[in-house]
């Protein structure tokens, strides 16, 4: 069944390739690839857990293949306005879960795509959404991208969002590394998916210095870019303040902030009443 799936997938891709040959414009090629990308994301039918896992693997592999085509397009037409759209689409898939690399395959387009973005588009005023997007990820390329945008982009709003996103990226990455120290299977999945050399390098970092840099980055976002707006409408300053609180008070090794409130019976209580006990604090929501 799996084999049939892959054959269908390859047929789809060759279909896109042949559509390109009829001297389509770069914009038309982009549109066709984009359609293919969206179609790859929906199964259209409810799936069992095992089917869903297989489907996720196929979606990632399909998107990885499409990402290479987006990069090819940008390389072929570097001066066309569609080039940046194609490159952003090539790196849009941000993997927040370290799926086993056997399942999802390697994303071989990413490194080249970021190279081209940094070479040709680092001053673009369109980079803010991508900065926000990659702040959730783990890849090595995201860090250098965010640093370069912060350093070289002339638009204050883009700089602001790159600054905030860099702090968030570093903070998210540190939290995942903390978990990897406890879970060797998770550490293996990260190393396999994001490269062993990069992972080893991260584990050699001095955690205190990383934390110091995260705090400085958020402080910069508050002081220099505080009034700039995010796409959600909140200011960079508000968001950075809340992120700074998180990194200072809500990380492993810190005393948990106290909570005072009402329980389900309407009785007031405090988290600190449970000192002396190990506490599993579960933020949940009944949907």
């Amino acid at each position: 069944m799996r084999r049939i799936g892959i054959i269908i997938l390859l047929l789809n891709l060759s279909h896109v390739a042949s559509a390109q040959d009829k001297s389509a414009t770069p914009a038309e090629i982009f549109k066709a690839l984009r359609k293919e990308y969206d179609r790859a994301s929906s199964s259209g039918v409810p799936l069992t857990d095992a089917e869903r896992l297989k489907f996720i693997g196929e979606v990632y592999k399909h998107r990885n293949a499409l990402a290479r085509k987006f990069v090819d397009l940008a390389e072929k037409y570097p001066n066309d306005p569609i080039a940046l759209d194609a490159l952003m689409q090539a790196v849009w898939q941000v993997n927040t879960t370290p799926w086993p690399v056997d399942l999802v395959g390697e994303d071989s387009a990413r490194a080249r795509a970021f190279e081209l973005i940094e070479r040709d588009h680092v001053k673009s005023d369109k980079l803010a959404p991508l900065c926000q997007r990659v702040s959730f990820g783990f890849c090595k390329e995201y860090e250098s991208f965010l640093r370069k945008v912060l350093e070289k982009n002339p638009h204050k709003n883009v700089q602001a969002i790159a600054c905030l996103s860099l702090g968030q990226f570093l903070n998210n990455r540190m939290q995942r590394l903390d978990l990897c120290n406890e879970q060797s299977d998770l550490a293996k999945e990260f190393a396999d998916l994001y490269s062993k050399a990069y992972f080893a390098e991260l584990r050699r970092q001095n955690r205190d210095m990383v934390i110091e840099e995260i705090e400085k980055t958020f402080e910069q976002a508050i002081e220099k870019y505080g009034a700039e707006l995010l796409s959600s409408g909140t200011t960079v300053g508000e968001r950075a303040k809340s992120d700074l609180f998180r990194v200072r008070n809500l990380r492993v090794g810190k005393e948990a902030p106290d909570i005072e409130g009402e329980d389900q019976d309407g009785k007031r209580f405090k988290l600190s009443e449970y000192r002396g006990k190990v506490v599993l604090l579960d933020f949940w929501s009944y949907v």
Partner: protein
Amino acid sequence: MKNLQDKPFALIGVHVGGASTKKLKEVMDRENVTWRTFVDMGNAGAGPIATKWNLSATPTLYLLDHNGIIRYKWAGAPGEKVIDAAVEKLIRAAEKSK
């Protein structure tokens, strides 16, 4: 989760779904959820506790040791085995310190 009744351990919930105390009580009785839970008032995910704790998704779990220090933090459910191992490790440390 194993039976931890006689151990120095507590499971505390924070309900951030925006339900009132009365509504939450009904849901918890119906679903047989017994652990003590803070009711975070306000809009879903935007109540004062969720805001202060910079909550981005549920479930988010924090595991605190007997001194109230954050020892583990999981965004998303890490699986029962991982939680059990971490809880047991911290309970051993808590019992040792007595």
